[in-house]
């Protein structure tokens, strides 16, 4: 099936950039600097407040027109929209997990005279990461589903070729979307199992 490469590229790019964004924004929202905190808060609310589809259109039509910023290609626009969108959602998970590590852990860190960085690096973050894992797994699947939208901005992914096939070949018409659904499910399967695995891992070694 053609278009698979595009779908997988967008998925891979979005996952990497999305997680990166999640951690950067998550930490920025915990910063002591009011400006950084407010600015990241603004970013998160904008992207959570509007629809991903609208963001996709915005990145592919509006950004080049408004600021003359050419993102180079639809590929970049697609990856950017998806990763910024899910990065915003996941940054809330990063922030929430870090905040939910109990205060006693920070206090124990202070009592052992760890520096703030060491407290984050050795005490808080490893525990928070474990809490993030299951949610991160769920968002992998969300991002996979989101990649189906890129055909709407004219990218030649699986769905694009599906549409093409539908309009050109009547015989295959009734089944083409079923095949695409199955295609997505096959990619999703390892992600589903990974999520379950992550849930198991996160249950171990947690404060009781």
């Amino acid at each position, binding site marked *: 099936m053609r278009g698979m490469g595009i779908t997988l590229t967008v998925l891979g790019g979005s996952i990497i950039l999305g997680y990166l964004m999640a951690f950067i924004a998550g930490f920025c929202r915990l910063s002591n600097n009011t400006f950084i905190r407010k600015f990241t808060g603004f970013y998160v*609310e*904008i992207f*959570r*407040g*509007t*629809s*991903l*589809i*609208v*963001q996709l*259109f*915005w990145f592919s*039509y*509006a950004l080049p*027109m*408004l*600021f*003359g910023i050419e993102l180079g290609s639809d590929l970049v626009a697609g990856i950017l929209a998806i990763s910024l969108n899910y990065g915003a959602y996941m940054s809330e998970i990063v922030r929430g997990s870090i905040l939910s590590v*109990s*205060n*006693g852990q920070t*206090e124990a860190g202070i009592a052992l005279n760890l520096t703030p960085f060491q407290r984050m690096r050795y005490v808080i973050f490893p525990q928070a990461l474990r809490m993030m894992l299951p949610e991160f797994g769920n968002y992998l*699947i969300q991002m*996979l*589903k*989101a*990649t*189906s*939208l890129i055909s*709407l901005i004219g990218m030649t992914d699986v*769905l694009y070729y*599906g*549409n093409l096939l*539908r309009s050109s070949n009547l015989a295959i*018409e*009734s*089944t*083409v*979307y*079923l095949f*695409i*659904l199955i295609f*997505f*499910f096959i990619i*999703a399967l390892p*992600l*589903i199992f990974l999520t379950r695995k992550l849930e198991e891992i996160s249950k171990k070694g947690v404060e009781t």
Partner: protein
Amino acid sequence: MGNMILLSGFMDKVREYIPLNWKWDLFWDSFPFVAKGLYITFGLTIACYVFALLFGFVWTFLRRIPNRPIAWIVTWTMEFIRSTPPLVQLYFLFYSLPLIPYIGISLSPFACAVLALGVHFSTYIGEVYRSGIESVDAGQWEASQALNLSTFQKWTKVILPQALPPTIPMLGNYLIIMFKEIPLASTIGVMGILHLANDYGAIHYRFLEPITVVALLFLALSYPSAILVRKLEEKMNRRYGEENLYLDNNE
């Protein structure tokens, strides 16, 4: 005076580097055109949501059937619906379903969107119900057993009244999430705000302003509701447990 000149000089410089290609007249012109679609977008959101709320119960009860093969099928059907893109599901219902012999029916775009998005999100809503039901104390089941309530009474009088209120914030969250997925329906011709924005763009050869209108409408509607849900969540947390959270070490 001097300041004004300086300022306008500064703006020219800005324009030089960032060519702001923005037309306010088009923005105001497209606003009412696009906003007309709000009725459809709202109507579709409500219809999908009600459908998902009701269909969610179906999943919840199907999953409670104590039969391994059936439970397996139900679980994986849910998993399939959840992990495949709603857009493709929408296309499937709209383009493929009518062509399937015998069972194939042709649905209007609106009905199609309700069915596709409703079923997709009902799998999530079903999980929300399940978590609510599981959070009801085991003693409540035993108590209703002891009072010899019928199965129906047990569910309607004891379990669900306790299981559902704590899930309200989560259900509220799904309403907002769904609202943001509704523009998908524009792809099969439902005249929501996104579709109208595209129409407007096609007429005037300008997509920037109408798309921005859509983005602003979404923001204006979903951000306040998100804050509302957060408030609700805090209130619920205070009512249902987590009381011990702040007792540590505070004498």
